[in-house]
């Protein structure tokens, strides 16, 4: 064969490959827009009963579906960092993680994977360090607010759900907000979770309250907490107000939002994150409610100023605390604590577990219900910051498509979260989860009320420092409620203005 023919042959071969890929991508997009991965979940009907009714009604073939995004015989390499299961995690988390990588290998036998599982507390710092040395992985999965810092600093590639063969409607609007920076999306939600309101039905009954229904509003929480304290002499609500602790905003912000307030305008339909709401009348009412419970009624633990939810677990299992806000995994934790109790404590602990109830978080005065949207997002790093200087786009798309498929989005979120892909709620795996994890239907039904923290790089400082500081200033009497809110507003304004003191 002549050189010309060889070159022409090689050129035709490349052209064929490009054409085949383009056809496949187009077909994938049309199919995704059609019936295969099209959203068929009606969010307007969302409730614990609806969630149960749709579970197990459809099946998906992730390998086949993702083969339309990246051909299953594609040869390439992808590097990936994430937080996988560790020693303390339940066995099922390990099993599902292992099963995913086996399934990926089966679907894409020629894609080499370079994977690192890094602990939750270390991942952000290691990722920052790797970026500084241009040694980052191609793909990274970060906690829900972790990515905005890197998007703002220009490290992440702008990607949309369509990048990996999905549609915007396949994901929660609140979750997509968390991957959007200055109008551009920089990732896909992999899993989302919310919390529920947990109470001890027996304590409610002993205090003269309806044991099977939680307080409907936050004002009811204040009243219930006082009634429990007055009648039984134990703490009502497990207020959490520790400084420098992420637990604090996760429990206080739902209250703030329910009253119509916020730190910035994160609770608005289209937030700009430029308006400060922390000193609005609504926010002050929420702070006043916490003040009422801690200072006036003294119906919450005195130790709230140094408590995280972990410190609430012991009094709850000891029947000394009536109400807390937490994840579905809290039930498993209480059962674990009860199994370790001995003697007379065991009878008490077993009774507490038997009387645990989960419900929706209370609403505000106007009926608004809110919860923090938690979870993780998956991002693609720009080539110049990746080790080797290249991103294998088809391999990356294959990984993200598989990870976010309805089947794996559900299985990889088995224990404490929910699929980021809404179609995951239709799968058999979701049905099995609902049947085996108590109260999952309740926390799942809070998802439509989910609001992510402000999606700005300054959010950790605002949420973990300013908001707890405001609470502590008010609860210790260091400032009045008004002064504490105004003080927080000044600090937040300075921070989003690019300044801020120490």
């Amino acid at each position, binding site marked *: 064969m002549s050189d010309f023919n060889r070159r022409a042959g090689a050129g035709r071969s490349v052209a064929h490959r490009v054409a085949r890929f383009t056809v496949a991508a187009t077909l994938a997009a049309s199919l995704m827009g059609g019936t295969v991965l099209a959203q068929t979940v009606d969010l307007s009907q969302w409730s614990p009963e609806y969630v149960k009714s749709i579970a197990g009604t459809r099946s998906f073939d992730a390998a086949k579906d993702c083969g339309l995004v990246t051909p299953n015989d594609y040869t390439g390499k992808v590097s990936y960092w994430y937080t996988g299961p560790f020693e303390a995690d339940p066995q099922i988390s390990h099993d599902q993680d292992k099963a995913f990588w086996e399934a990926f290998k089966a679907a894409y036998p020629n894609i080499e994977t370079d994977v690192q599982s890094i602990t939750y507390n270390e991942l952000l*710092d290691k990722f920052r360090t790797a*970026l*500084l040395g241009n040694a980052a992985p191609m793909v990274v999965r970060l906690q829900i607010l972790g990515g905005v*810092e890197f998007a*703002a*600093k*220009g*490290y992440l590639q702008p990607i949309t759900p369509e990048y990996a063969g999905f549609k915007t409607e396949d994901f929660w609007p609140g979750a997509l907000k968390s991957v959007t920076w200055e109008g551009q999306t920089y990732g896909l939600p992999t899993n989302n979770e919310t919390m529920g309101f947990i109470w001890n039905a027996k304590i409610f009954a002993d205090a003269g309250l309806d044991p099977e229904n939680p307080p409907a509003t936050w004002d009811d929480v204040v009243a219930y907490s006082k009634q429990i304290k007055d009648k039984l002499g134990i*703490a009502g609500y497990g207020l959490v107000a*520790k*400084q*420098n*602790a992420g637990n604090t905003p996760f429990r206080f912000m739902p209250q703030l939002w329910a009253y119509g307030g916020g730190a910035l305008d994160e609770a608005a339909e289209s937030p700009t994150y430029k308006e400060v709401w922390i000193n609005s009348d609504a926010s002050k009412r929420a702070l006043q409610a916490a003040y009422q419970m801690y200072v006036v009624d003294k119906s919450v*633990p*005195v*130790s*709230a*100023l*140094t408590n995280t939810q972990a*410190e609430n677990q*012991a*009094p709850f299992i*000891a029947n*000394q605390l009536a109400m807390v806000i937490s994840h579905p995994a809290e039930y498993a934790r209480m059962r674990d604590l009860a199994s370790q109790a001995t003697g007379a404590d065991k009878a008490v602990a077993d009774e507490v577990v038997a009387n645990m109830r989960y419900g929706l978080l209370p609403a505000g005065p106007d009926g608004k219900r809110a919860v923090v949207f938690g979870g993780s997002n998956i991002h693609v790093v720009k080539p110049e910051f990746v080790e080797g200087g290249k991103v294998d786009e088809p391999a990356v798309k294959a990984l993200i498509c598989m990870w976010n498929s309805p089947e794996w989005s559900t299985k990889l979120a088995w224990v404490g979260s929910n699929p980021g892909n809404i179609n995951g709620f239709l799968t058999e795996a979701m049905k099995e989860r609902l049947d085996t994890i108590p109260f999952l239907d309740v926390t799942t039904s809070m998802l439509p009320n989910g609001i992510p923290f402000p999606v*700005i*790089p*300054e959010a*950790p*400082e605002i949420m*973990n*420092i300013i908001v*707890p*500081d405001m609470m*502590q*200033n008010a*609860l*210790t009497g*260091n400032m009045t409620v008004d002064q504490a809110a105004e003080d927080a507003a000044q600090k937040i304004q300075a921070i989003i203005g*690019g300044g*801020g*003191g*120490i």
Partner: protein
Amino acid sequence: MSSVQGQAIFRDVPEPAPKRPNIGQRMWASRADYLYVAPAIVVMLIVIAYPIYYTIELSFFNTPASLSLANKQFNGLDNYVTILSSPIFWKVTWQTVVWTVLSTILAFLLGLGCALALHREFAGRAMLRGLLLIPWVVSAVAASYVWKWLYHSDFGAIGALVVQLGLSDKPINFVDNTTTALYSLIVVNVWKEFSFAMIMLMAGLQTVPDTLLRAAQVDGASPWQRFWHVTFPHLRGVSTVTVLLLVVQNFNSFIIPFIMTGGGPVGSTQIWITHIYELAFLRQRWGVGAAYAVLLFIIMMTLGYFYVRALTRGDDQRAGA
């Protein structure tokens, strides 16, 4: 020595003292020794010198959360001005001084008392010495969590005991109270480190001549007089070193305040090291955190200078003799 010859008096002129070589000459004379320590010096340059250099450099830059470090903005001494002009800085500095001074004095005195008590022979001395070492060997993290529960404002063991003994009708609020929180943490810190002072001073007590003590006793000196005029002068050197080490340790003490209170309530248990951590790692204010760290570094180097002087004072005197 002078000698007389006729009317003139000649005095011998003393020979000039040998000129001590300067540091450069001494280093050159020992140049072969430096080859042996070169690998360690290289490692130190990488893991200590370069981070110090980078921290100093970072302290002159503004590092907003929305900008990568590669695009940091030079702002001269602004970070230092921000720190030194902040009322929070002075509040934290005062708290750091209180924390360091009280922890050092109390740990030293308690350690001295235990060392003196354990210096004499009695049945069970070895076991008691071992028990008193437990706070030092227990992990600071574990100790912090245990003490957090002992102090718990609602269910703490100390509070429960106080109520049961009828000393109060409700548990004591140790760490959820802005007035008592810092002092409560100081108690934990003293408990954790008095064993260190005890061990150092016990070693020092071995150097006190028994004959002097017996002579003082024979002369009618009281126990206090024997301690103050015989024992303590011999402990001066080891006491100086112990106090300096305690000061350095307390200045850098991070675990107890961070785990037990997170710096709260309302910043009442915030000290320099926890504040630096908060600024750098929780608030992403790398430039300001670096400037703060440089200030701490200057203080630590100053204390380190005095420590080395105290440690090597005897060596210089012996070398000169």
